[in-house]
């Protein structure tokens, strides 16, 4: 498969009468975007705001982050199986409004966390303080069942990304990156001596607000499955997870999966990157055993010499992570795990709920209980009261000057377990 990412580097975003890109500036016609989203009769109101890096803006509670793109060559514009007709993804050419993100907000439940601070201390902790954000606040009609509510907000975000992405259709990209990996037979013939490396990407698959979708299929319903890395880089995987702010994989992070991109850089040089295995993190123990056995079996049958395994979430998925690791290592496949940890406010507690001596190579992307101090925002986009849930009910968490303490837990992408961010842990 060959996929081209044509990056149109966007320097600024402004509101205006026409959605277009000119001289690296993206103009957004907010009214047209709102009208487009309200074509869905379940959407009652939409508000559109812009948030640029450095502005004293807090966005809360974030549901998803999505990158605006348009397919210019090949089939499957949008998110096939979700917002558009099903298509085989991973081939052709995509234009990307690089540096721009659609950020959807909307409180499906009262305890949703997920904050992005565009400035100051808070900005350091989230990768989405560096993007030019088009913040879409979606209010659905009353009386929707929570599933329909969630889907309405999810679809609106994806449709907004499609709508904005279309502005890049006829713009010459500043840079084109080519992602090409052939069939197993071809690549093995080309690189017979390079070690074969697979990527196991785990997805929370446990029910409402805890889901992920592959070509529109809820990952709860699948056995672990093999993807060509290009498919994920081409909108095949989206997020339906909105209760694990720090370590959920947003749609944007699927579209730009850091592990896939960094393995691609080594493909043909030091490794033969043989594919991505998406593995659901189920709730039942029997389900966990089945998917972990099955994942290890796929790795064995693909002839993998080594795998990177990334977790999504914290708590019960730790068991899956450790089980997949054990099974692979016992089959002689070398593993590197990526996970975040919960070592308490003081960092003195045991970091994972499950451990194994086979887990010899682990990347830690930070302590979810690490406490950070956020200063008061000049402007809050979303639900200002969500701050109180965010601050989490411990004494003295909000100071008189409006600054507050919160755990990384609540900060979008702070401890990204696909290694999208820079946090790590040092032992002192």
């Amino acid at each position, binding site marked *: 498969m060959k996929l081209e990412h044509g990056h149109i580097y966007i320097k600024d975003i402004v509101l205006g009468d026409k959605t277009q890109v000119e001289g690296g500036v993206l103009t957004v016609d907010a009214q047209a975007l709102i009208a487009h989203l309200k074509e869905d009769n379940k959407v009652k109101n939409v508000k559109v705001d812009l948030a640029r890096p450095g502005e004293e803006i807090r966005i809360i509670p974030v549901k998803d982050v999505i990158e605006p793109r348009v397919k210019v060559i090949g089939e499957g514009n949008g998110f096939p199986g979700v917002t558009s007709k099903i298509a085989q993804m991973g081939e052709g050419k995509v234009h990307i409004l690089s540096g721009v993100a659609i950020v959807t907000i909307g409180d499906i439940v009262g305890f949703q966390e997920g904050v992005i601070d565009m400035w100051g201390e808070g900005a*350091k902790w989230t990768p989405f303080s560096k993007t030019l954000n088009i913040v879409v606040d979606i209010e659905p009609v009353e009386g929707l069942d929570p599933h329909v509510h969630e889907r309405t907000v999810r679809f609106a975000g994806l449709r907004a990304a499609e709508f904005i992405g279309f502005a890049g259709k006829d713009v010459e990209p500043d840079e084109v990156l080519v992602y090409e990996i052939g069939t197993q037979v071809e690549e093995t013939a080309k690189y017979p001596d390079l*070690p074969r*490396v697979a990527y196991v990407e785990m997805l929370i698959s446990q029910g409402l607000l805890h889901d992920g979708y592959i070509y529109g299929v809820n990952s709860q319903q699948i056995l672990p499955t093999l993807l060509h890395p290009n498919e994920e880089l081409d909108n095949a995987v989206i997020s339906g997870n909105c209760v694990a702010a720090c370590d959920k994989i947003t749609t944007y992070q699927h579209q730009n999966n*850091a*592990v896939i*991109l*960094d*393995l691609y*850089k*080594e493909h043909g040089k*030091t*490794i033969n990157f043989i594919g991505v295995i998406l593995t659901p993190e189920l709730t039942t123990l029997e389900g966990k055993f089945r998917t972990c056995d099955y994942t290890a079996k796929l790795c064995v049958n693909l002839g993998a*010499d*080594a795998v*990177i395994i*990334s977790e999504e979430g914290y708590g019960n998925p730790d068991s899956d992570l450790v089980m997949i690791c054990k099974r692979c290592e016992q089959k002689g496949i*070398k593993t*590197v795990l*990526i*996970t975040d*940890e919960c*070592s308490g406010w*003081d*960092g*003195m507690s*045991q*970091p*994972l709920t499950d*451990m*194994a*001596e086979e*887990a*010899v*190579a*682990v*990347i*830690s*992307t*930070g*302590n979810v209980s*690490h406490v950070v101090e956020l200063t008061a925002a000049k402007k809050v986009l979303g639900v200002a009261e969500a701050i109180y849930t965010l601050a989490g009910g411990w004494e003295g968490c909000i100071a008189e000057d409006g600054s507050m303490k919160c755990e*990384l837990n609540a900060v979008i992408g702070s401890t*990204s*377990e*696909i*290694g*999208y*961010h*820079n*946090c*790590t*842990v*040092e*032992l*002192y």
Partner: protein
Amino acid sequence: MKIVYYVNQFFGQIGGEEKAGTPPQYVDKAVGPAGGFQTLIKDEAQVVGTIICGDNYFNEHKEVALKEILAMVKDSGADLFVAGPAFNAGRYGMACAQVSAAVQKELEIPALTGMYEENPGLEEARSEAYVIKTGDSAGTMRKALPLMAALGLKLLKKVAPGLPSEDGYFAQGRRVTVFSDKRGSVRAVEMLLKRLAEEPFVTELPMPVFDNVPPAQAIADLSKATIALVTSGGIVPLGNPDRIQSASAQKWGKYDISGKKALKGDFYTIHGGYDPVYANAYADRVAPLDVLYELKEEGIIGDVYPYFYTTTGTGTSVASSVAFGKEIGKELKEAGVSGVLLTST
């Protein structure tokens, strides 16, 4: 700024083993290694006093000794407390460790000591105080003191210590979230390439050390077996004749139970980690000699070994526990015991 120093009878230049019973005394000058420490930190701070205490006195009168020493530290108005280094000396190490931990915890004065990695004191101190890594003998004093002085100055000036590997101390176990110059996925790919090339790599989340002991072979014929009773539940004869510590035990005890049908009445608990009421009323609830005796009467087991072994598990360091286990195990093996009933609380 003021520093107060702690040394044992030997480094305090009052004598050797024969003076190990000396109670703590405060001398208002730098004695022994405190002098070297003073030279290294030049005039940035003053060692205002040295506390000298015999190792045996400390270990045998721990509670009293700690109280006296803490009072001396408090009265000195110290900004920093330094103990040792103790190298691989066990009793001195325990004293340095426990005093440092208490100074840090109870007086909130930064505390610093130094010892060898196998010193049993290490586990007592490392999560509270800073413990500099030293060699196993006093011959390495020259290497240890400059590291202690450098870290001591940082603590005095309230400069955050660097990584354990940078400043030469044993990690305290605090996992601190920081920023790396590389994103997580890049670090993962680099670690994977190192693994594939069989080059050394450093995991970012070390797993705990799994000390798995393979189980012994099953006893073929229980009716001919001699079973010994061992506990870490702090069950001792009334009056605790060997003065086994109620926490952080330094020793174990061995008591003749031949002819006894139960421990009840003659034994009680000195364990500091649980409510003693029910164990004191009936010590067999923790170490069930009564049931063992019944099994013998019924012929299910051959015999009960005539000695009972005991210590206190709470707060006892892993190193001490391993040592006790080896010592007790050796005796039992030599006595031909076939199996052990080991109870904990």
